[in-house]
């Protein structure tokens, strides 16, 4: 890896940590919404699949090593046990997929396609991890089942879809802004 590539991945991991906690003004039922999904998509879209997924891996490692970078300022090795850790892991896949599917110049259909893949990856990995967690180590609430796990996700679906659409739309905007200011962009 080139030095610039390492540094840019590091900064995206740092941005991800901010994205996880930057939104005290966005709450649903008291739970702050995180912009992690948005930053994962932007990492993939702006850095490409390889660097995007590396930056997300670095983010996960920082969190596991103990820095409070996950949503709601959580961190530490015990985060693996959290039922929502699957979502954190899914960001690696999300960044990779976005980078792969949204290579420039992307057509309109590619954006729709990428959005669908992103939401699928995020929900499938996240929900299965959550299901496994409640099955085996976390204590499940009474009447927990596979269908219940998915029904919990339904509440977040509209917001997540909006965030995905906005982030995908922001990718070309940010690319344009970067090229206007003659900032070096990585081409894979």
């Amino acid at each position, binding site marked *: *890896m080139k*030095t*610039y590539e*390492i*540094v*840019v*991945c*590091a*900064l*995206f*991991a*740092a*941005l991800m*940590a*901010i994205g996880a*906690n*930057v*939104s*005290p*003004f*966005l709450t*649903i039922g008291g739970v702050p919404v995180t*912009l992690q999904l*948005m930053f994962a998509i*932007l990492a993939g879209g*702006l850095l490409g699949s390889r660097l995007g997924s*590396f*930056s997300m*891996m*670095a983010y996960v*490692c*920082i969190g596991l*090593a*103990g*820095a*409070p970078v996950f949503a709601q*300022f959580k*961190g*530490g*090795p*015990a985060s*693996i*046990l959290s039922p929502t850790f699957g979502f954190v892991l899914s960001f690696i896949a999300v960044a990779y997929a976005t980078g792969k599917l949204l290579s420039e110049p992307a057509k309109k259909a590619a954006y729709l396609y990428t959005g669908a893949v992103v939401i699928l990856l995020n929900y499938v990995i996240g929900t299965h991890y959550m299901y496994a967690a409640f099955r085996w*180590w976390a*204590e499940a*609430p*009474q009447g927990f089942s596979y269908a219940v796990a998915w029904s919990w996700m339904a509440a977040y679906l509209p*917001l997540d879809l*909006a*965030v995905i659409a*906005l982030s995908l739309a*922001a990718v070309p*905007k*940010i690319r344009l*802004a*970067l090229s206007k*200011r003659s*900032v*070096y*962009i990585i081409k894979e």
Partner: protein
Amino acid sequence: MMEKMIFGRYLPLQSVVHRLDPRAKLLFIFGFVIVVFLANNALSYGLLAVFTLVFIYLSKINVRFLLAGLKPVIWLIAFTFLLHIFLTREGDLLFEAGFLKVYEGGVRQGAFISLRFLLLIFVTSLLTLTTSPISITDGLESLLKPFKKLKLPVHELALMMSISLRFIPTLMDETDKIMKAQMARGADFSSGPIKERVKAVVPLLIPLFVSAFKRAEELAVAMEARGYKGGEGRTKYRLLHWQGRDTAALIILVVLAALLWWTRS
């Protein structure tokens, strides 16, 4: 939001636990997280609790710091405990008040699960309290070395972690500044429908990303000007030394696992 991001959680004291090799500590913690699940009766949980208390004592960390780390999860623990007390119907009936029936099995189950949670949090927060972030990164790099064969850039990943830790506060400041600048121009982040509020984030992103890319470029140039040439053949200022006490720590963990296996029912 800055105040909550406390990175200075590392407490530099002189203790056996502090002096352990970060690799040993990382292996120990990940082993412990698995071993905890072996316990399933009063005797094995008691053993675990005693073991954890000894560990805390050896680290010389003030219990106050450990309790502070507990604050965000205390409600979760209390909630799971209550859930078990009222919903698990096993063993003898202990107490009845109207529709509430508390069974002996429920109390036991609730206590065990809360205790497991508590022990896990104590032991994992000991890692961050007794090890500086830099040594944790060094330890991770060294432990992940075998993955180099799978083409995972381990050295680069460790470097990314250190750089990123350094830049989180800087970028945080920057986000704050950009947010205030946009608010001065009339951006509204705190009212209106959720969709509008998410939309207001986009004008925040562009300056943030532009500045992040610029910083990256500057830092990369600075690193190369100082002779950074990648991980191959690079030597280190701080070397990790595996010593007898590190092996001993892992042996103790294995003994604990064996004891738990023996006492569990």
